């Protein structure tokens, strides 16, 4: 399946992917209206070891630990192999967060799990973090 991969040698740490992610998943059609004066909670996070920066989002693992730990069935793989979240089933226990080796699942303020779903559940249909990265540091490809 096509997945998001990160090339840390090209990442400048501009955090634009975080804003584009928050916009893509806001349900609002204008980036300024969607983000201005708002605290964002994106599915991709730019981290750093002090020297190098890199974006981290869900890896859509072949055998995802998050799904094997999910007690409510809220996390599952769709037919393409992407790990998707059904918020209506989630009870917010945090088991997925406990096992994700990338720290890529979180419990939001609403009390349910959220993570990168490859922009398949919004109107963009393709990962906006990839499309808008000015440096090609995030790619969406088949490996």
């Amino acid at each position, binding site marked *: 399946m096509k997945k998001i991969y990160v090339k*840390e040698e090209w990442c400048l740490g501009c955090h634009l992917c975080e804003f584009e992610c928050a916009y893509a998943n806001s349900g609002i059609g204008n980036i300024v209206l969607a983000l201005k004066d708002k605290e964002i909670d994106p599915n991709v996070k730019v981290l750093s*070891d002090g020297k190098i920066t890199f974006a981290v989002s869900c890896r859509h693992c072949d055998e995802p630990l998050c799904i094997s730990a999910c007690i409510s069935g809220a996390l599952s793989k769709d037919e393409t192999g992407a790990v998707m979240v059904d918020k209506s089933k989630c009870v917010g*226990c*945090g*088991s997925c967060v406990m096992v994700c*080796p990338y720290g890529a699942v979180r419990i939001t303020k609403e009390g349910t799990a959220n993570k990168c779903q490859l922009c398949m559940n919004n109107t963009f249909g393709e990962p906006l973090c990839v499309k808008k990265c000015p440096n090609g540091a995030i790619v969406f490809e088949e490996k």
Partner: protein
Amino acid sequence: MKKYVLIGGSIATEGAIEGILSADKSADITVICGEKRPLYSRPLISYVLEKKTTDEKLYFRGEDYYEKKGVKKVFATAEKIDPEKKIVCAEGLEYPYDELLVATGSKPFVPLIKGLEGVSKKHTFYTMDDMIGLRGDLEKGGKVLIVGAGLIGMKCAEGVKEYGCEIVIADMAPRPLPAATTPEAGRIVQDRLSAIIDFRLNAALDHFDGDKAVFASGEEVDFDILVLALGVRPQVGLLKEIGAEVNRGILVNEKMQTTLPHIYAAGDVVESYEAVSGDKRLLQLFPSAYLGGKTAGKNMAGEESLFLTDIPMNATNLFGIRITSAGLFVGEKTEVTVGEDYRALYAEDGVIKGFILIGDSARAGILTDFIRKKRPIGEKDKKELLAGRDFALYPAEERKAALGGNYEI
């Protein structure tokens, strides 16, 4: 076509079905379930009691999971295994197998307490039927005594609270969650919940006098509804009587094989390899059941698979307090307090053995991964890890592999 029989209808069985089907598309699978219900998620019962989710959603893979997977279901109690003839007997019928999985789970432990038979409303809290029975009594109201302040008792209390009932929780231990937390973390939980729960700790139950519990100290607690949450015991009988090696649970190797040929076991019923201690342990956890079941399933279908990364772990949200832990609380402790949050890391010989977090758990998975992979860390890295500056501590090559492409988790 190979015949697979799976005894038990919970998470280990689900894992086994997935494991078998990944390696043998034409598998002939039969599930024998004494609980006589489609696959459902037992840890969800407290969330249903609490009305955070619904009875329907307990069937977390859909009520037709077995049908979707092409698995035959038999709602009957398995009574006997004949390892010579390779058949399972259940309620008068015989089910032949080529490979057998015993995933009989565990059963609430109910000690012999004088006067228990005279208690008018008494419950355990383990199955969907237990929850439905308790809910029926709670809807009529009254004061609830929960004996046992472990995870089951505490999660039950959270559900009970929804019904406006007064709650007393008693335990012989000096603090709540004695097994799942450290003394420090348990005390934080106790302090924060003491306004809503009347804790009776260090309290050994002596006997019941009608609907009144009498403790060894002479202290008495009246109640309307009693919940016994004193832990669970593996149901090892079927395998014990045919000579499989059994300790507290059924002993299995890393392939989830019992000591008898063509018989595997997984889930709450087994003592399996635990990666932090390197010993066989009774873990009785949801992810262990699923992954152990999956490992068993693959091996049953002839694809070699080893389960080498099983460790204790727990994540829960208790009355708004998030508690997340993994590994063992052994070795040198490093602890920090960040606002209301408490975080402690346990390490030995430059390797993290365990952690517990009260509050924000956002980076817990990375700590768990450090434990599972036995990834070495420096002394000063411990505080970095607890501060959430974690992913940067991965060796650069490993991180590049993880983010840039193929990486085994």
